């Protein structure tokens, strides 16, 4: 079996642009917020100290901004398969609209937004952009993440 060219892989992925994932919902637990804050090494009382956070502007604990990384969107009806060995995370652009509190239910839906190719030190790369929208149980848009993955 021959390895397909990067251009052929990119052309095939291009067919999937615009596709939306299924929704996936998550109940945000206080212990998970605390564990996440501890894992990133952030001692901010807003994320872990209930008594201190209750006196603050949110009246209780909220999640650190990047906590939503936990809330993966549901699957795509047609899986996005990249027949390349190496994948790197290129970066993220987050827009934050509402705080996330323990007890919230967050629903994530991702749109496969774009496919481009680029020459780099590591050879030709495929760059895939995805936009994930996170809403809470009140139907409010909580955050939008635009992320870029690189495959080569």
């Amino acid at each position: 079996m021959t390895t397909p060219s990067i251009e052929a892989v990119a052309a095939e992925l291009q067919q999937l642009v615009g596709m939306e994932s299924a929704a996936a919902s998550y109940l945000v637990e206080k212990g998970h917020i605390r564990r996440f804050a501890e894992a990133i090494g952030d001692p901010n009382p807003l994320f872990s100290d209930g008594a201190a956070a209750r006196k603050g502007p949110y009246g209780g604990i909220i999640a650190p901004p990047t906590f939503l990384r936990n809330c993966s969107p549901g699957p795509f009806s047609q899986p996005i398969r990249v027949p390349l060995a190496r994948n790197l995370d290129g970066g993220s652009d987050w827009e934050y609209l509402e705080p996330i509190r323990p007890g919230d239910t967050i629903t994530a839906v991702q749109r496969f937004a774009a496919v481009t190719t680029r020459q780099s030190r590591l050879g030709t790369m495929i760059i895939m952009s995805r936009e994930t929208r996170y809403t809470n149980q009140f139907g409010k848009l909580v955050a939008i993440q635009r992320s870029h993955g690189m495959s080569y």
Partner: protein
Amino acid sequence: MPTTLYWEDVKEGQDLPPLVKKPTTQQLVKYAGASGDFYQIHYDKDFALANKLPGVILHGALKNAFLGQLMTDWIGEHGRLKRLSVQYRGMDVPGDTLTCKGRVTKKYVQEGQHCVDCEIWLENGKGEKTTPGSATVALPTRSGG
């Protein structure tokens, strides 16, 4: 909590207080568990080496979290992080000393919000900017706006 940061007290061109991080392999495992990102390049050295990496490397999203902390530490509980953008340009490895830094690029009022744009980045122990980015925050004002 730190004292409140007011919009009036921010100056364009000023540096943000730096945040130093010393990630360990243990932290990468904790982050894998807490974030649900179990890609093996972040905790399995043999797997990372087989993928032509220098060893296990930091999750990009962990560096994103460090830069998020840079911002939330600076603005305090009354400020609001509106936007956080990071680009993973270079790999970072556990055992290195990483420093998150930032600088105010613009102050403005938009739709009644008192906003500040910052250029932010993460430097490795050699002073190389591996993770540049930008952020926008909204701050309280002394006049209560």
